């Protein structure tokens, strides 16, 4: 065996690579459980690719039969129900894990120098995930699939001059139809492979600058501050995967439709819009932001779309908005408060997005649209305030430890 490895290593240095990048890769010794979510995301990505690949062996992207094919997978294909429920719920858990992963980065300042490019690759992966999730949701060709696709593709008509022609080009027709379904299936197949390639780049960038840590300080002495990745973090990551699998499988086996909309079990009907279109839960905060801009008359639509896209793209400039000398919010009391306001506000926006546009709360006293507008202001306010309190040195960071 070792003879064989020597032969291989002389030609391609596999052992060196495994040692320096995996088993003996120096990892900060103080990583907490929030650092598990990167490996969890990779795990779910692999589950999604494998289940998706096997689903694709039975699925046919034809507007006349797609709905029935999904039921065929559920009823006739051996373990087809398991593949589909693992895939559908996998999307939900992928987004849960990714949201925690992103918020972890925001809390501990993992986006700060020298990790800006690592952070940007992550945002690009997140954007592609949202695209892939949207495309995949269209494939069962139920009412929510169809009308979700109609509403989202219609967002493009907000683009001045070319919008109307662009959306016909995307559809390959005058409405969402067979041509649209076919190309969406191909793109839903292609994008995860692109995501996988980007994940490799993400890890390359990570290994070039190394992991941040809860204290947000640089490693001073590798021997004292770090542990080899194996066995210390392989076992910790495996433990995390175990916990995730318990929760994930509970949903797959006991509440597989908890995150799905009943209306999507009605075949797509281009002549009738469901009374209440809701996107998948992981788009809800952004959907609420889109809907909250309704007070600009003819510019509302374009402004809403810009606000929604801006809500994600503002993450790209986060490394430059945060001017604090300290990375981790552990030692930044004001940033910490802003962060938790941001988190609670995002959940509130999700709830607003889930409800109909004209809904009210507190017994009709408070229209949700007001909450939506306020929430949108707070969402963007987080980024403005973070700049204000750090650039103008309003926040006085607590003393940071000298080493891990």
């Amino acid at each position, binding site marked *: 065996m070792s003879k064989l490895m020597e032969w291989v290593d002389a030609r391609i240095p596999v052992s060196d690579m495994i040692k320096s990048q995996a088993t003996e890769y120096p990892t900060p010794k103080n990583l907490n459980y929030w650092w598990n979510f990167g490996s969890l995301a990779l795990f779910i990505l692999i589950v999604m690719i494998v289940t998706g690949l096997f689903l694709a062996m039975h699925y046919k992207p034809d507007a006349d039969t797609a709905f029935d094919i999904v039921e065929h997978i559920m009823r006739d294909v051996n373990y087809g129900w398991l593949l589909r429920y693992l895939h559908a719920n996998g999307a939900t858990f992928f987004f849960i894990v990714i949201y925690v992963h992103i918020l972890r980065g925001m809390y501990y300042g993992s986006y700060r120098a020298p990790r800006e490019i690592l952070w940007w690759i992550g945002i690009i992966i997140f954007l592609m995930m949202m695209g892939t999730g949207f495309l995949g949701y269209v494939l069962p060709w139920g009412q929510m699939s169809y009308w979700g696709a109609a509403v989202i593709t219609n967002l493009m008509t907000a683009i001045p001059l070319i919008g109307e022609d662009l959306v016909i080009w*995307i559809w390959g027709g005058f409405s969402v139809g067979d*041509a649209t379904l076919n190309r969406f299936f191909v793109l839903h197949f292609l994008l995860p492979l692109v995501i996988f390639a980007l994940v490799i780049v993400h890890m390359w960038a990570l290994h070039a600058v190394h992991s941040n840590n809860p204290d947000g300080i640089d490693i001073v002495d590798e021997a004292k501050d770090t542990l080899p990745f194996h066995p210390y973090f392989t076992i910790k990551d495996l433990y995390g995967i175990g916990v995730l699998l318990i929760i994930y499988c509970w949903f797959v086996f006991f509440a597989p439709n908890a995150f799905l909309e009943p209306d999507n079990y009605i075949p797509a009907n281009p002549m009738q*819009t469901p009374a*209440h279109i809701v996107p998948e839960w992981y788009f809800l905060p952004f959907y609420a932001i889109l809907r909250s801009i309704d007070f600009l008359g003819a510019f509302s639509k374009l402004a809403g779309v810009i606000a929604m896209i801006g809500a994600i793209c503002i993450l790209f400039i986060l490394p430059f908005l945060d001017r604090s000398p300290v990375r981790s919010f552990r030692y930044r009391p004001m940033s910490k408060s802003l962060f938790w306001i941001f988190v609670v506000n995002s959940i509130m926006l999700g709830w607003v997005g889930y409800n109909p*546009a004209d809904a009210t709360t507190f017994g009709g006293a408070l229209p949700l649209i007001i909450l939506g507008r306020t929430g949108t202001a707070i969402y963007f306010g987080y980024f403005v305030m973070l700049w204000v309190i750090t650039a103008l040195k309003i926040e006085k960071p607590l003393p940071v430890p000298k080493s891990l």
Partner: protein
Amino acid sequence: MVIEAEENRRDFLILATGAVGAAGTAAACWPFVRSWSPTADVLAQATTEVDVSAIAEGQMITVPWQGKPVFILHRNKEQIEMARQADSASLPDPAVDKDRVKNPEYLVLLALCTHLGCVPQPIGTGDFGGFLCPCHGSHYDTSGRIRQGPAPRNLEVPFYVFKDDSTVIIGKPV
């Protein structure tokens, strides 16, 4: 040794080669881009013929045209009157009712909300006697004009002709 004339010559050649290569690559992309546009058979289904004589006054039907829903409303006196009275009102997207119909009794509308393309609900569901889009709460009146809500424009009136008194052809033949 650097000969300046040679250097300039090389720069020019690199630039020219690059430009030709970029233009060629862009041109080669075009067929791929164009392959996404509606196909010939999709374009061939351009018109729909509808018999409107069976629609009762004040009632409407929904017919498919190019895969999209079209509302045909047989307007009664009251609905016509409501539409005309609103002509003078300050509208988000000003339009006069008589410009939106060929025969005032029949209102033909592309039933896709100009906000994000949902199908509005039938006549009488919205304020102003017209159509309500359930997705984001846009109200259209009995002429299909936007009166309230996030939609930027009036419901579109598709191209149509009356073949005879009771038959409407929606769409232009390709």
